[in-house]
């Protein structure tokens, strides 16, 4: 009985751990779908920029006539800028065609990942009588308080949201970030939208900002018409960005020219992914080619924690539980035989052969193991169902990408309010 119970518990634990592992893998796949695209097998991105490279810290440049100054000398400023991720390199647009031309590639879709940052606030007038040329440069982040040289008292905020430039002609393809979205209102981007100032919004972003189809949104200091609201087809994942705009417009406003930040590649078959990957790495030596599992390893938050827990602790837990169960089964069986010495001796005395007695004990052990196994499967299935019932929601966040001292990334809700950030104000001449 004890052996059967022990076996049942061991089998149940293995099933639960296995179910947990499979569940996390599925959840991981689901959570990554928006970041990655449901049909996407590989992503090609620009090589990570070395520290000190890239476009540098984002800057807001206000000209002499920027903003308006009221009677007490306070200047009100507002500016919106569209910036690439400074830590990420970009790829030439021809990379998309190069990837699409590789054998085994069904679809290749390019996208440009950007961040829109809006500066909005008031700055006080400089101290009267101060020597303009001798005025010290404002220290970073000090604008809100008394600053060196007596300049201070300003109040401003920086708002940001993620923008993804999508090849409008390929927006409906099976690969790419829009493949895991559904149109909730209006329509999605289409071929006719190329070059147009139109945008599709993520549903949760639209909700939080109170935007809907027909409204306008300022992206890169230009007005865009909201033509649709998109939501993720996954209940546990966000869409890839807050705002989707045509790729050519994104390239124009960001000043990057014919560039993309990511190429989403779909292979013809699962077993062709390895060959496609090799061909991509060979054809694009400067780009980084990643599969979904590699992407998962770079994703932070509970997703990677759960994944690591399952792949390491889960595996070892299964092994340990099985070893302990087998050891306990052996010990309990030996103990049981010791307790049954008189009974087994009696069987021998009344004519049972040694082989028959061993067979009897073995068959009893097998029956116990079967009972334990079947019971364990039942308990394990119940346990897996309980885990599914109380399973925590896991989320995905792309790796930290410092932009002007903030973090913003695809799929993240990295939005900040009234952040005192580094900036440079062009002093009035």
């Amino acid at each position, binding site marked *: 009985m004890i052996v059967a119970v022990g076996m049942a518990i061991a089998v149940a634990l293995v099933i639960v751990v296995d179910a947990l592992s499979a569940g996390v893998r599925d959840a991981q796949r689901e959570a990554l779908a928006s970041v990655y695209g449901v049909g996407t097998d590989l992503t090609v991105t620009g090589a990570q920029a070395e520290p000190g490279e890239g476009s540098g810290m984002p800057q807001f440049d206000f000209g002499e006539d920027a903003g308006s100054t009221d009677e007490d000398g306070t200047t009100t400023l507002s500016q919106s800028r569209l910036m690439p991720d400074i830590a990420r390199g970009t790829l030439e647009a021809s990379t998309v065609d190069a990837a699409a031309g590789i054998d085994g590639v069904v679809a290749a879709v390019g996208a440009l990942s950007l961040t829109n940052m809006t500066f909005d606030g008031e700055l006080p007038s400089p101290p009267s009588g101060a020597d303009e040329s001798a005025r010290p440069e404002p220290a970073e982040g000090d604008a809100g308080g008394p600053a060196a040289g007596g300049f201070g008292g300003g109040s401003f905020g920086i708002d940001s949201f993620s923008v993804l430039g999508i090849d409008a002609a390929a927006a409906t393809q099976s690969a790419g970030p829009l493949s895991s979205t559904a149109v909730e209102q209006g329509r999605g981007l289409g071929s006719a939208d190329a070059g147009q100032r139109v945008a599709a919004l993520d549903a949760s972003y639209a909700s939080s900002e109170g935007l809907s189809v027909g409204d306008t949104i300022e992206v890169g200091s230009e007005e865009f018409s909201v033509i649709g609201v998109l939501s993720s087809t996954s209940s546990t994942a966000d869409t890839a960005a807050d705002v989707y705009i045509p790729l050519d417009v994104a390239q124009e406003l960001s000043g990057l020219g014919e560039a993309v930040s990511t190429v989403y590649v779909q292979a013809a078959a699962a077993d062709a992914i390895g060959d496609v990957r090799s061909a991509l790495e060979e054809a694009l030596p400067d780009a980084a080619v990643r599969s979904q599992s590699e992407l998962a390893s770079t994703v932070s938050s509970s997703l990677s924690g759960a994944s690591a827990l399952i792949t390491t602790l889960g595996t070892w837990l299964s092994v340990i539980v099985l070893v302990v169960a087998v050891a306990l089964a052996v010990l309990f069986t030996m103990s049981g035989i010791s307790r049954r010495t008189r009974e087994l001796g*009696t*069987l021998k*005395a*009344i004519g049972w*052969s040694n082989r*028959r007695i061993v067979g009897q004990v073995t068959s009893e052990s097998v029956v116990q193991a079967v009972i334990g196994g079947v019971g364990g499967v039942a308990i394990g299935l119940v346990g897996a169902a309980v885990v599914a019932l109380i399973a925590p929601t896991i989320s995905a966040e792309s790796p930290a990408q410092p932009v002007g001292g903030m973090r913003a990334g695809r799929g993240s809700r990295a939005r900040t309010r009234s952040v005192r950030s580094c900036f440079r104000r062009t002093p009035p001449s």
Partner: protein
Amino acid sequence: MAGGAAEPRRGPAGGGVMDATQSRSAAPLYRLTGVTKSFAGRRGGVQGLAGIDLEIDHGDFVAIQGPTGGGKSTLLQLLGALDTPTSGEVEFEGASVAHASPGALAKIRAAEIGIVFQAFNLIPTLTAAENVDMGLEPLRLTRSERDGRVHDALTRVGLAERASHRPGELSGGQQQRVAIARAIAKRPRVLLADEPTGNLDEAMRDDILAVLDALHAEGLTLIVVTHDSAVARRARRRLRLEAGTVSEIGL
């Protein structure tokens, strides 16, 4: 040599304990010649039996007495084909079993020898009928034959109506009667009993003795190890085993 003086008796044809298909040879049931048995111990070897010469005839009723450690149980194990001697010869129905294989000894135990223990040694999770049936398992009989033998054996010990009771639901005397039924269901040539009344009160002891007397009257050979003088008095022969040697006690 402690020779057998008893006249072999035959049981009633067909319905007795003796299997009707079994035939008796002219040789004694047991013949032991120069039998020794030693056991290895941490302080050197222990001599269990020190040269036993003994013959036991068919139908005999032999009581073996003696002090604890005198070798009674060791002798019973050799007679029950549970062990083999260190030296000497043990013949069962004229055939040597001193050097028989474990498989051959198991066959002898399964078909020819019934054994009853002081502590009954019933399997507590089985009913009386199932315990009796366990003794028939090695004989490869048909189900109906086994059921018939089980019912017959329980009837002979007066427990047919308690066939479905488990040992915990029976008194000590009833449990010992179930053990006797298990031993005789196979219709053996000899019944070996190790202190069969050792755990019983006087009334129960008399019940068991009545059963043993009836079996002996039907021609079954009985060999009983006992400290109980009431049991010993029922025997046709009384042997004393002390310090590994056997001697006849006059009746």
